């Protein structure tokens, strides 16, 4: 017992001693920190800018004040806009292209800056699904409070976001890749890629010109597939002998392929996505079916070529929204893109690039960083009025010299943009043919 008691006392003493020593050490630390803090301006400065960040997040008006002042620019945090992208899911290939385009555009914007402030993009994943897209947009708009939202890829996702999050607010929504026809019915929902209606018309003309008066169509069972197919059926002069939807991400499409074959049509039109199309091609190949294939833009891509047998889709014709690849600014974009990422850009990357540049210009042209102010400028900075410029730096210079949004006409790398009253851009289409298992451009069609 006594021995234990001694132990206990000893331990207590030790603890006291240690505690005391610890306190002394800590206080020493504290004083040292204080001294250091006073001495070095750097740490104070960063504290200050943190405070500003908080203000930006909390209230857009504070950002406006800094903007008007134009002098405190350096101390202000970046302008934050949101982006909903398909980082995963069946459209993730588009998401990857978008990220490259957006990243490059962001680099170019921040080389120049917007009135001395930087632009930052908060990216959220839509998982290529409506529900994921809505959740992502809600996070960006309601929690982060972004006044400008780039999104989304899939047309159904873009519409779902618009109807459940954006509609009724001042937030600007600009879809980077949606080509679904029904987006035209929502003038408040802007998009950078041209409507699919032009694709459907072009496809119906091409199939008729090739001499097919019967066609079998299968489309992906969503808004995009349905609307493009409806437009095609309306425009096509011949007979649509088979017209059936299929669900995304099924593990087998052999029923679809065998029904298309039984329909007797020699021209097969696919309005679906890459993974689904690749599966169908493989199943058609291993079932020994032969037909002339046609496709909407969403069935083209390197992953289709890599994952289908050599020669299985030769002669297939695809209509894709195309960037004006003969223009100088596109070629400059393409070579910069290639040196950055080691590959040729796609139109999809170009659309995302233009979305970011267009957003940055509308922010610079606006009086304040709010949705209402950006609504005023987003169409005008790239609209047909004003001096035609092809880069953010040139456009930004005009705005910085006191120019208004109508003094600038940003010509995008994906096309002249020029949103119409429905929020659709002017675009044009390229007809691709698969030759030796590679895509070759054979024609251009006005969109």
């Amino acid at each position, binding site marked *: 017992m006594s021995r234990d008691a001694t132990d206990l006392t000893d331990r207590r003493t030790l603890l006291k001693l240690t505690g005391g020593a610890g306190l002394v050490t800590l206080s020493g630390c504290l004083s040292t920190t204080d001294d250091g803090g006073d001495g070095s301006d750097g740490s104070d400065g960063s504290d200050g800018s943190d405070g500003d960040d908080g203000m930006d997040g909390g209230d857009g008006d504070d950002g406006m004040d800094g903007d008007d002042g134009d002098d405190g620019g350096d101390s202000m945090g970046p302008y934050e806009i949101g982006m909903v992208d398909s980082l995963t*899911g069946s459209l993730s290939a588009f998401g990857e292209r978008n990220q490259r385009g957006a990243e490059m555009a962001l680099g170019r914007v921040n080389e120049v800056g917007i009135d001395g402030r930087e632009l930052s993009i908060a990216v959220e994943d839509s998982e290529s699904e409506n529900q994921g897209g809505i959740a992502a947009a809600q996070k960006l708009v309601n929690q982060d409070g972004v006044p400008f939202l780039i999104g989304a890829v899939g047309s159904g996702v873009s519409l779902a976001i618009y109807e459940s999050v954006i509609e009724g607010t001042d937030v600007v929504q600009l879809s980077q890749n949606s080509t679904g026809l029904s987006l035209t019915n929502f003038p408040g929902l802007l998009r950078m890629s041209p409507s699919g209606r032009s694709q459907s018309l072009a496809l119906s003309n091409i199939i008729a010109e090739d001499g097919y008066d019967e066609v079998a169509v299968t489309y992906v069972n969503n808004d995009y597939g349905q609307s493009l197919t409806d437009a095609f059926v309306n425009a096509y002069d011949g007979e649509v002998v088979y017209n059936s939807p*299929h669900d995304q991400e099924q593990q*087998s499409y*052999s*029923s679809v392929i065998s029904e298309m074959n039984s329909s007797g049509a020699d021209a097969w039109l696919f309005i679906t996505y890459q993974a689904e199309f690749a599966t169908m091609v493989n199943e058609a190949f291993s079932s*020994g079916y032969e037909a002339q294939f046609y496709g909407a833009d969403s069935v083209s891509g390197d992953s289709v070529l890599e994952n289908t047998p050599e020669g299985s889709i030769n002669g297939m014709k695809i209509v894709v929204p195309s960037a004006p690849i003969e223009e100088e600014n596109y070629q400059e974009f393409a070579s910069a893109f290639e040196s950055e990422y080691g590959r040729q850009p796609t139109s999809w990357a170009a659309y995302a690039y233009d979305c970011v540049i267009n957003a940055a210009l509308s922010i610079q042209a606006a009086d304040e960083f709010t949705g209402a102010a950006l609504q005023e400028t987003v169409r005008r900075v790239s609209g047909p009025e004003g001096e035609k410029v092809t880069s953010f730096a040139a456009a930004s210079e005009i705005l910085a010299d006191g120019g208004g949004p109508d003094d600038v006409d940003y010509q995008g790398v994906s096309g002249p943009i020029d949103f119409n009253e429905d929020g659709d851009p002017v675009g044009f289409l390229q007809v691709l043919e698969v030759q030796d298992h590679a895509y070759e451009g054979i024609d251009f069609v006005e969109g």
Partner: protein
Amino acid sequence: MTVLGYLANGLVFSSIIVLGSIGLSLVYSIADFANFAHGDTMTIGAYAALVTFGAVGGLGGAVLGLPYGFFIALVVGIVAAAIVAVGTEKFIYEPLDIDSIGLLITSIGIAFIYRALIQIRFGSDFTRFDIQPLRPIESLVPFGVRVTLHDIAIVGSAVVLVVGLHVLLQYTDLGRKMRAMADNPDLARVSGIRTKRVKLWTWVIGAGLAGAGGVFLGLFNQLSPRMGFNLLLVIFAAVILGGIGSVYGAMAGGFLIGMINQLTPFFSDVVEALPIWPGWLARLLESLISIEYANAIAFVIMVAVLLVRPNGIAGEASS
């Protein structure tokens, strides 16, 4: 396409579903929870085989249009799926020590982790084994059957695995212990069966079969991080249809669901040909029995079977 052709397609698709559903049912009967990570275990098997096949290559010869290297890859896929499943059991499910609902929810999380890891390593795009796809077997085409040698290899391998499992369950010591444990785990334990060890073997077998199913699914279709998860609903339907917990029921259920899925175009032809009266009923049936509802039709049949036999095809009268 003829009935024979649809039946052949159904057989190939069923083989893959059967491989998946056996494992799910086996784990349910012995580990006593519905493992939602089962689909992603299939994905792991497929990607492990993809990596192995990329590393070893074809190795010269080929059987049934498949290079020797592919069979090595298949084995590696099976082993990898088994190792991952046993590891998960050892480090997560077992230490958790919660009831079957808790384990079920945990397994959903595990499924996301598996998928995310695959996505980090391989990206979210789809890919295929680097094997030249084949044309259909010429001599069968006149019968309307359009299957390739690969399809025959899938069915053949599935049959070998299923028969192997049957032999294991019926004629080996381990099989007897597994069946004893499935019937009554407490009684099995007091009779001296090392239940933990049997449980581990169950995971090895169940996940191994899932891995094989995943590899064949990749060969049949393509590989993508969501491939297994997308098939999971169908596999669950198969297991429930067969009578959850019953291995032979899972075989029957998987076979039936796969067949119904692939036979839908035939059903819709039949409905169109039948003189159904009145006309509105014919139109209704024609619009409902169509391939975009293939899975829904399979589920309706599942519900119908369960109404007659509430415990599934092979389920016992009382649970």
